């Protein structure tokens, strides 16, 4: 079983990570730009939600938009943060999430697992990988009763319009600093 032992030690040694460590910390101005961008982006979403949707059956603010703000304002260059991924990832994942809730809602643990896993697979296949999409799919299943009641409207309202608001703010804001540009690509 020597081979087996070698494989096991290879396997375990991968868990140590490479010796090279994490990327360097960004400069202080960069931190401030990220802060200001995320502030404006989330403010826009929350403000619109507060004025137009509070008290209705609809909502614009979902938790996964906070994760999108990390990428769009904190890792501007990342392929994960580009418009194709930002919009595509949320929309596809919301579709998957709502479908899973409606088809598998009787078995919540299964619906949740299938939703997130399928959302990732679909984002991979469509080159729209956007980590917050996984959260969107999960939210559609776990929901609140309000989210569940929206049905496929959830895809349109928070999951399309929310990222669109972030996208507009990111376009306007991320191109102000000389050292930033957004997007790297559209489609």
């Amino acid at each position, binding site marked *: 079983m020597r081979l087996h032992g070698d494989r096991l030690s290879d396997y375990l040694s991968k868990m140590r990570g490479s010796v*090279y460590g994490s990327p360097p910390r960004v400069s202080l101005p960069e931190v401030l730009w990220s802060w200001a961008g995320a502030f404006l982006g989330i403010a826009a979403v929350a403000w619109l939600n507060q004025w137009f949707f509070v008290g209705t059956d609809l909502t614009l603010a979902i938790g996964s938009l906070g994760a999108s703000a990390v990428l769009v304002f904190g890792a*501007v260059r990342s392929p994960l943060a580009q418009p194709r991924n930002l919009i595509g990832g949320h929309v596809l994942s919301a579709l998957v999430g709502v479908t899973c809730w409606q088809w598998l809602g009787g078995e919540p643990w299964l619906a949740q697992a299938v939703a997130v896993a399928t959302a990732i697979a679909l984002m991979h296949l469509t080159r729209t990988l956007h980590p917050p999409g996984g959260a969107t799919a999960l939210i559609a299943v776990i929901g609140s009763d309000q989210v569940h009641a929206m049905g496929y409207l959830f895809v349109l309202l928070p999951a399309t319009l929310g990222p669109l608001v972030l996208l507009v703010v990111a376009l306007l804001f991320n191109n102000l600093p000389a050292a930033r540009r957004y997007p790297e690509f559209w489609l």
Partner: protein
Amino acid sequence: MTQRSSRDSSEPSSAQGDLADIEFTDADILEAMREIPGYLDISTMDFRAIYRLAHRHALDRLFSGITAGRLMRREVNPLTPEISLAEAIPSFVHQGLKSLPVVDGQQQVLGILTETDVLRWLGAETFLGLLARVITDEPWIKSDPYHRAVGEFMTSPVVSVPLDAGLRELLAAFASHPGRAMPVLAADGRLAGLLQRKVFLAAYHPDRRS
């Protein structure tokens, strides 16, 4: 009569290996990442892997269009083994070449006759050695071999390359023998042309490419 150069292109020649293996330290990469404002979500290992592969692709792209068939000189009048040196030597002079392929009636390459082969027959290893003897006027140059056949003096077997040989194969072939030119063979083994080392070097010089 001919031997193909080895086509082991999976093993890059050392010269190209050196080109591709510019090693970055992690400090180099991290410093570069620090100079680029904004967060880059790649690791130093990612960078290294991308760099290595991209470099290899770039080399392949730069040199992919160049093959033995495109670099070779087509207008070559080869020798035949039965003609005498007396007839062969003017052929070198007219064609401005220092080596000529020797072929049979079917244009199959039998060997190559080089200036060095002729000098060796005259008893000198180099042209300077010959010159020294001529100047001291030693009565040693015999004229009878002058009428002997090319086949007796040619280098055989000869290293040759196929028409589609690219950078790696040509480098390996030129490195495997001291000759300044190699016959290029068509798929059926017939002589297609002559590839000169100086032409090959000029074509692969990176600074001279547009």
